[in-house]
């Protein structure tokens, strides 16, 4: 999926550079509508997974420690990255607050009038998903299975859930899904906080 994403992204960028301005302007505006259609579709999937809500109740509040660690850790990483790249701290927080949900974080920051920040956030969160695909097996081997959920962030509920469950166990996969759902619910609130 990550490869398909990079190819389509590259095609879109090339298309945007060379296609007539009227068409690129239309597609540019269409992206907000496209996001809403995608979120409607994702919403249906979220609602279908009633089991996740039963699991939250069974594990108690401790299940929240994972998304809590993911969010705090991402923000700390973002602060350090902002320092090294001489970016404003607020923008740094907004970039990492996407927690791997590249389509939403990029658009939110771009729509807030910062296309450069939006692009960095989009690319950064695409990279985050790719890093997750590559490093989950090593994290399970050298740290523990809870840590394998951490790089995935919001993607733990869909695209990276497969690789997490493949390298850990059923229990961890459920925790990963729940953590992904919580991160996904947090992103639309967290990113605008820093805009």
């Amino acid at each position: 999926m990550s490869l398909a994403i990079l190819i389509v992204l590259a095609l879109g960028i090339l298309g945007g550079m060379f296609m007539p301005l009227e068409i690129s302007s239309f597609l540019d505006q269409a992206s907000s509508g496209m996001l809403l259609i995608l979120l409607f579709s994702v919403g249906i999937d979220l609602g279908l997974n009633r089991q996740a809500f039963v699991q939250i109740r069974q594990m108690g509040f401790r299940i929240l420690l994972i998304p809590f660690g993911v969010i705090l850790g991402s923000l700390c990483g973002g602060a350090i990255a902002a320092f090294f790249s001489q970016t404003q701290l607020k923008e740094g927080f907004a970039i990492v607050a996407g927690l791997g949900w590249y389509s939403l974080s990029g658009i939110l920051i771009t729509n807030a009038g910062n296309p450069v920040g939006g692009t960095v956030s989009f690319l950064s969160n695409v990279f985050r998903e790719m890093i997750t695909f590559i490093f989950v097996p090593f994290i399970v081997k050298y740290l523990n299975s809870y840590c394998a959920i951490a790089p995935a962030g919001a993607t733990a509920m869909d695209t990276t859930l497969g690789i997490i469950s493949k390298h850990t166990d059923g229990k961890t996969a459920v925790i990963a899904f729940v953590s992904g759902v919580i991160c996904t619910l947090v992103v639309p609130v967290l990113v605008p906080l820093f805009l």
Partner: protein
Amino acid sequence: MWKIFLVLAVGFSIGFFGLIKDKQIKINSRLQTLWLLLLIFCMGVSIGRNGEVIQNLPALGGKALLFAVLAVVGSVAFVFILSKLFLEKEGEK
């Protein structure tokens, strides 16, 4: 912003209250990949038609990678500490 919550809520309700058949669920998850790729294409177009962004892309890519790596390292470190403190002991009992 409110539109995002609205479509999520409507979709969620449809899934949660079982207003959708198994066949439609499969179609929905396939369409989801299509919407995602279309959205990414449109985002690519937005990036490509913006001269300022294109000029800065080599620099932006490196910056994006820096943020991605440090966000991942931070997340793993925090979850590692929290799991050592609160989760692993319970598992061993």
